[in-house]
């Protein structure tokens, strides 16, 4: 009888263990982020502008969530019309934080790769980006001229931040920017006139690694066509 009781107890224990291993974990509360956002992060040795650009591109079409910072790559907003629900997508400063690979503390210019499915916004707000302290891992540029800015720099106002997407621009003299534009627009590449809007300043991440790294002899930036 004792053996039988021991066997039953063991089977119950094992069943519990097996179900924990094989079945997906239930979220502690039923939100999109709670269900889907299990990613992690790893510190990296360097970050190039083109890495940041490629990273941000995955967030396009994936929605907007105030205070959010988690998305997948199915090219649609999985929580449309559900603002403030711990839904899919970043907000504007969360998108910049993860794309720039900033570390989640001040005074650290290093870089971190965050899984897109890690729900992290980061400690920096638009005010931090617009009025940075010297210890922050970004700084304000002296002006916003095309000769001053580089792609993946940001235009930032008191309430919004967007990353300059390309060194090429439309012929109407707007800019392509990558931005989390709100619940109505979602996250994507838009054309904007932030460069010439005096509410916006230009901000740059510190410590970018050159795009040509680790093979800086390859490629040329000017090709003459005969």
């Amino acid at each position, binding site marked *: 009888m004792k053996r039988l009781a021991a066997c039953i107890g063991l089977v119950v224990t094992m069943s519990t263990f097996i179900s924990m291993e094989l079945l997906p974990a239930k979220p502690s509360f039923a939100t999109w982020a709670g269900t889907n956002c299990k990613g992690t992060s790893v510190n990296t040795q360097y970050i190039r502008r083109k890495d940041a650009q490629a990273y941000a591109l995955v967030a396009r079409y994936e929605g907007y969530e105030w205070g959010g910072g988690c998305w997948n790559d199915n090219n649609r907003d999985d929580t449309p019309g559900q603002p403030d629900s711990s839904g899919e997508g970043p907000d504007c400063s969360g998108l910049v934080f993860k794309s720039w690979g900033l570390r989640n503390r001040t005074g650290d210019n290093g870089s971190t790769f965050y899984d897109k499915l890690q729900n992290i916004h980061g400690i920096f707000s638009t005010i931090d980006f617009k009025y940075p302290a010297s210890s922050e891992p970004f700084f304000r540029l002296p002006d916003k001229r095309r000769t001053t800015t580089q792609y993946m720099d940001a235009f930032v106002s008191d309430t919004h931040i967007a990353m300059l997407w390309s060194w090429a621009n439309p012929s109407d003299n707007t800019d392509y920017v990558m931005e989390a534009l709100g619940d109505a*627009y979602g996250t994507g590449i838009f054309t904007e006139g932030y460069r010439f809007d005096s509410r916006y300043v230009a901000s740059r991440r510190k410590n970018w690694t050159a795009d040509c790294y680790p093979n800086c002899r390859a*490629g040329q930036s000017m090709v003459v066509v005969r």
Partner: protein
Amino acid sequence: MLRWRGLSGVMTLALLMGVAPVFRAMAGPSRGSSMRDARGPADYLEIYYTSPVLVRAGELVRLPVDVVCATAAGRACDPTVTLGTRVGSEPWHLVSTPAAPGLQFDLTAAAMRAVSSSRGSAAGSVSFFLKAVDKAGKTTVLPPGGQSAPLRFFVVRSLRSLRIPRIPFGQLRAGVATLSLPWGSGRSKAGLSLGRRSPNVGPSGFDVDAAGHLYLMDPLQGRVTRFERGRPIASTAVSVGSDASIAVEPDGHAFVGGRMGSSIGVRGPVGAASAQAFPLGLGILSQIKVVEGTAYARVLPLDAWIKLMRPAPSEGLGGSQAISVGAPIPGGDELVRVGTEERLRIGTVVGGEVRSGVELTPPAGLAFGEMALAESDGRGGYWLVVRVARLGVSSNDQFQVIHLREGRVVDTFAAPSRSFAQAPPLSRFVLGKDGGLYQMTSASDGMRIVRYDTRGER
């Protein structure tokens, strides 16, 4: 004995379950993780470029080209880009290079040949296309038709240059409000999405028909509403993205366009039995125009106008689309314009050559911003609206409206650039079919559309 065998089986299973997480950790991130191996084909391969549009023979001509290449995991990849150029009846000239950051092609020589080869003419053009290929062979061509339907830029031997008059910041011409709507829901209100860590967003565009009726595109409420003397007359439900565009024919038939999922498209005439959908594939829809009964869409990063015709089922998107660099205007001509911080250029393409070309420069110490409007005045002149900005520590900006005719400024005034709710940059000003110049503005209590006195200059 059998019981002990069963017990040992359960124990073995438990052991396997216990070590599974260890093996999983050793195997690295799961297949769905964005930290997987960066190698692999590009999921995203997109070309962005800045078209020269209109150049003067002899000046430096640069074509910046940016190829964005990324894997599904969000890792950068390294494609090659090919530029094809052709002047007149020459064969295509192809140049390939790694798509390095900051890449520009120098087309000065091709531009010079364009005017040398056009004997007896003061203008010519250079045709071009771009092709990007990643290491796995994924290919993107801009425009999609490549050599068979290329882009082009125009070259003139000379271009009249004018410096626009300086208007002090804040010295604005007051417009007359023709429509005022409080924020809210319903036909007599305008939809507003209040931003938090994002801009406020309101109606995305409007247009005016020949009778002076206003058509407001309010995507937040999913409708186009027609207003007569400030009152809603009719409303039609539409389902397009928040950055939707609108254009109406002189008789009021409206076309709307915007994002539909990850692609863009145009529909119209709205509410008519003959309404059609025009899918445009991936990209950004910048503007819509309706000219002489035909709708056109300006699409980015193509940076060209597409004549909206339904493709045959056997044709892919873009394969047979008629594209033009200039905006269509009545009579089959095109209006070309291009802006930089240092200059604006505008001209009319007639029979493949640019006529009435003009270059404008900003007042000293100021820069040009976006060209919010560029239209023909129907009498050989142009209406332009451009943001004028002082860049730097003490920055400032406002819009400047400029009416050009016969190579001179016949009227200019400043208009406000501040707005409570954000709208797409080329949707704020409209030259109505009734001849009026209109601007959409907004404040914390609502939005309004004002009409400017253009002093009978149209």
